[in-house]
């Protein structure tokens, strides 16, 4: 098992390399550059641009830029060797002055813990969304299956269908109109994210799609498991209905659901750009969107790579959870 884990983790290295290469090519082919301003704003002076390009090494060939991003290079002013991505250094941001990408994303404000960094905020939001999705979606699916073809089932299916088919930014607008503009229960753009109630809307909106898919998937797997012979065996044993449902049905029905939730969590972490932007959420998704529109090259590279690693780890962890859930599955080399 540890050998398998090591092997899977080693596979992350080529994945990171390929993702970095593709992002690098796409990013530099996009029109514009980090020194562009809005059309109506004052543009950066051409000589200043030239100096900036030299300072950041943007005047070098792309291949050299890429290798020095990955491995490292000599600093243009101090002429000292600086290690690159292989040491975890994602380079200085082109737009946020005096901060490296990793500092910007991972460093919390003073006197706050890690969870108050941009990355920490996004992680918290993703887990909140996942929690809502599981705590609501799973019972919905299970109850739907147990009460198949009743009005409860139909309501749940309707909610799930809405959640799957309506994009979350549309739902976000509706919820903002209802709860923020009309009812004034929460403010539209909160000034502080320290209170719990301002988290509910973005968490709910972000988690709604996963909630709907969890409900549908768990309903489907429950319906399948309910017709299994071993469930009849359990009834014949004279077990109470609760034990039959919990131990014999739900535990078996959850296996496919869990395998869905791993990639879903990755999707929640990465899929929060729009929601974070809409709610003015101080997370990594918003930093990502801003970085792209500002052509902040090192920030785009950094956030993309972090997302890639998160997706890979989420998928990897599912494989291990699968082993815990299903004794028939064994991980082999």
């Amino acid at each position, binding site marked *: 098992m540890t050998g398998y884990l090591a092997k899977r983790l080693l596979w992350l290295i080529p994945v990171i390399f390929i993702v970095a290469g593709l992002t690098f090519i796409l990013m530099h082919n996009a029109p514009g550059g980090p020194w562009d301003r809005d059309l109506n704003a004052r543009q950066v002076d051409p000589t200043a641009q030239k100096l900036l390009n030299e300072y950041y090494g943007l005047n070098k060939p792309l291949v050299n830029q890429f290798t020095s991003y990955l491995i490292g290079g000599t600093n243009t002013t101090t002429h000292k060797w600086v290690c690159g991505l292989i040491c975890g250094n994602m380079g200085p941001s082109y737009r946020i002055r005096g901060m490296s990408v990793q500092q910007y994303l991972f460093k919390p404000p003073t006197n706050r813990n890690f969870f108050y960094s941009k990355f920490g905020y996004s992680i918290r939001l993703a887990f909140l969304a996942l929690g809502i999705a599981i705590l609501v979606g799973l019972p919905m699916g299970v109850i739907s299956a147990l009460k198949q073809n009743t009005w409860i089932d139909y309501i749940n299916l309707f909610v799930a269908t809405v959640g799957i088919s309506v994009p979350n930014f549309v739902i976000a607008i509706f919820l903002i109109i209802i709860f923020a503009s009309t009812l004034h229960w929460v403010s539209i753009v909160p000034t502080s994210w320290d209170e719990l109630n301002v988290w509910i809307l973005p968490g709910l909106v972000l988690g709604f799609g996963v909630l709907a898919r969890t409900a549908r998937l768990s309903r489907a797997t429950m319906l399948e498991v309910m017709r*299994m*012979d*071993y469930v*009849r*065996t*359990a*009834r*014949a*044993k*004279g*077990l*109470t*209905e609760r*034990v039959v449902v919990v*131990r*014999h049905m739900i*535990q*078996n029905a959850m296996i496919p659901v869990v395998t869905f939730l791993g990639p879903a969590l990755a999707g929640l972490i990465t899929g929060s750009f729009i929601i974070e932007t809409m709610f003015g959420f101080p997370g990594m998704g918003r930093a990502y969107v801003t970085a792209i529109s500002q052509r902040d090259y090192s920030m785009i590279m950094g956030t993309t790579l972090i997302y890639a690693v998160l997706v890979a780890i989420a998928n990897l962890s599912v494989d291990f959870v699968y082993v815990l*859930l*299903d*004794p*028939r599955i064994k991980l082999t080399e």
Partner: protein
Amino acid sequence: MTEQEVLLRVDHLVKYFPIMKGGLFPRQVGAVRAVDGVSFDIRRGDTLGLVGESGCGKSTTGRNILQLQVPTSGHVYFEGVDLVALKPEPMRKMRRRMQMIFQDPYASLNPRMTIGEIIAEPLIIHGIIPKKEVDGEVERLLSIVGLNPAYANRYPHEFSGGQRQRVGVARALALKPSLIVCDEPISALDVSIQAQVVNLLEDLQQKFNLTYLFIAHDLSMVRHISTRVAVMYLGMLMELATRDELYSNPLHPYTQALLSAVPIPDPMVEEKRQRKILVGDVPSPANPPSGCRFRTRCPLAIGICAEQVPEFREVRPGHFVACHLVK
């Protein structure tokens, strides 16, 4: 034998499955008459073999007796108590007295539980023995069915079909039931394993004074294990008699046809004998023939067979037949 107490009495058991049509607002357009008025009784310590073609309602009968499906009508008396009228909770408690061995040993064991857990579960739920004795009891049960007690913490997928069926038997035995419904317990197994399991069932019957309802379609196996045999066709009983009587003197044309389909392991005899081969297919249980269910395939059918359902009556002591032609 006749003085023995009747353990199970099935009285006009009926199970219809509705046929629904229409997507949004389904309505019932008919019913599959899986079991249509079956009556018999089993005495304590007996084995009643229930035979018939696939789809004739044997398994449905078994499940309805144990209330794993709710019968459409009829009564099932177990030690004098009508199970059909029983509320869910008393019925649940009643289950420890009657167990079932299922046809498919691959699908009937929960893949996420070790076989030890599977066997121990009913013991704990019904609170039959103190918790700390459960492990010992599981080991004892495993060795009774001829499995290594050390296997208790293995999972079902690690076993062969025959071993799994032994687990199924151990599980059924755990609650010390008096009735065991064996629903084709051997038809999913290799022929070499079938005999082992049947012999095991026989040994256990003697050891624990068990009563079996043995559902099967293998006539020679039923002959081997049963004391009485019932023949079922399209949801109804055609004939019921003691084993020797039924096999030596079958009265119903369907039983005769079934028995003549069994090959005789002697080439000389096999070549000479006249077989009764049935023509046509079994009619749909959703739309069974009028009168006698068997008349569409019966070589002897006469006018009355299409008009009147033959009464299931005792033509000789202990020998019941549903046929107009048997006097």
